[in-house]
């Protein structure tokens, strides 16, 4: 089974790292994964996109054709990619950064306050990790422990605790949203 995930945001919101962690989590699960990205010349502010394909088999074509899951942390990111999802896809947005009515074709649609929760944890920079926790809970594409292991392997040691709390918080609200 091939699952295509697209993360869209502004540069600087950390979604390229989120994609890397998600891919590495899938590898930890014993699956195959491909992560690609696109970004403008700006380090901060421009449009950024991170795509992950996860499959049990070899992954030939490495790009997303139609996303099974779209996560948008910016309005332009949502506007640009909202229509490029599979019918019945899972669409997840940051409720404070993206304004929209319900997605027209999504099978499930979640509006979650990743950035606000990160602020509550003390550092907005971990919004991308809160998001990972929620995506993990909602989609179940990657095993929770495998993904958490990948989070730990990819964040600076001195922010390890903050990131683990961010992931856990994200997972909780993801579970709540599912319920």
């Amino acid at each position, binding site marked *: 089974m091939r699952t295509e995930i697209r993360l869209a945001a502004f540069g600087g919101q950390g979604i390229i790292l989120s994609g*890397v962690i998600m*891919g*590495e989590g899938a*590898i930890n699960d014993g699956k*195959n*994964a*491909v*992560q*690609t*990205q*696109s*970004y*403008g*010349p700006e380090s901060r502010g421009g449009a950024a996109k991170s795509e992950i394909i996860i499959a049990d088999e070899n*992954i*030939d*074509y*490495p*790009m997303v*054709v139609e996303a099974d899951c779209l996560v948008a942390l910016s309005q332009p990111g949502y506007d640009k990619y909202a229509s490029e999802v599979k019918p019945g896809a899972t669409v997840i947005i940051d409720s404070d950064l993206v304004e929209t009515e319900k997605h027209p074709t999504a099978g499930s649609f979640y509006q979650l306050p990743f950035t606000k929760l990160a602020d509550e944890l003390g550092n907005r920079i971990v919004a991308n990790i809160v998001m990972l926790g929620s995506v993990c809970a909602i989609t179940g594409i990657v095993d929770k422990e495998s993904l958490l292991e990948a989070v730990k392997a990819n964040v600076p040691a001195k922010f390890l605790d903050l990131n683990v709390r961010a992931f856990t918080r994200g997972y909780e609200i993801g579970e709540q949203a599912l319920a």
Partner: protein
Amino acid sequence: MEHTAIQSTSAKKHKPAQPFTREEFERVRRVLKKKVQFAQGDVAVAYGALLAGCRFFAGYPITPATETAEIMSRLLPQVGGTCIQMEDEIASVGAIIGASWAGAKSMTATSGPGFSLMQENIGYAAMTETPCVIVDVQRSGPSTGQPTEGAQGDIMQAKWGSHGDYELIALSPSTVQECLDFTIKAFNYSETYRVPVILLADGIIGHTREKIELPEYGDIQIIWRKEPTVPKAEYQPFADDGTKVPAMNVFGTGYHSYITGLTHAETGYPCTDSQPDHHQLVQRLCDKIRDNRKKIIMVERDYENSTRDETVGIVSYGVTTRTVYSAVKTLRQAGTPVNHLRIITNWPFPEQEVAELAGRVNRIIVPELNLGQVYHSVREAVDGRCPVTACGKIGGEMHTPREIIEAINGSAD
């Protein structure tokens, strides 16, 4: 512990036999840590280089190749090698050629604009038969083009970029694992044939992360150049010993060889006004690659047992191959027989392999991320046996499988 090329911890203690010992390899493996990793193509290139025994890297920052330099600058000191950011790409190739003669396996990595600048010194490496590896993580051009986007626009430049007649070897990886594996192959070819080898990666695979598995000692072959064994007085640095690849002395071993980009005799000394000497030299430089094409050329064939009339041929290389794999599955499910030839060794060009494909199919399409480069080589090799259609895409995005299928269905008309 001293910092020098591994090949010569002390030049006086230089050991002419292959110096990359099992202990050395295993130490590098420990430096690279986990066996299974989720890594970018550019990073895998650096890993492959270190595992092949590369101990000198010179480069200049350029998107989308910079990550290779970043990794090399972090890891080379850990294995006792040297990494330097030069003032430009011209200097980078100059430095790796110098390092190669001083006894280090050496590499640089760049993208289109830098690759253009490198061409004169790549010609020098070909003329002086200097083993070295040049990684070109291709991006869209001409000129500055699309720095952050991938392309396959440097295929012809890789072969024809410098002036005069010469042959070199170029390999196209399509996965991150192949970025690692083919970098090792690139070093082996370069040491075996004393030739610059180009790794034709691209911005897509360079920046894509995938699962890679690091090899262990014994999984791979590591080759070191043939060094002279004759007494110093008898050594002729450019004499053909029958293999067309002369033994190469390393600087500092007392063989006193003179290396020049001028047309040179077997002694190494210039003989620029001699037509026969020039012909003999340049012919040998070309023949040492051409004569060994069977050992150098790698392709993948995915052919069906179908009649020629009903079968369509696809020739692909590099990252585009992955789109073709996907398209081929769909086409076959829909009942269209396809023969797919994937080129791994772009140079020397697999003419016979393409000609053989042309005898099995009613037409060939060549999808590539340019407006038609390998297309020309395919047409030349097909030599009228069947129609050949270019299927180029530029602008930084890969073909989708659908676009390839449509090109095939369209080209049937």
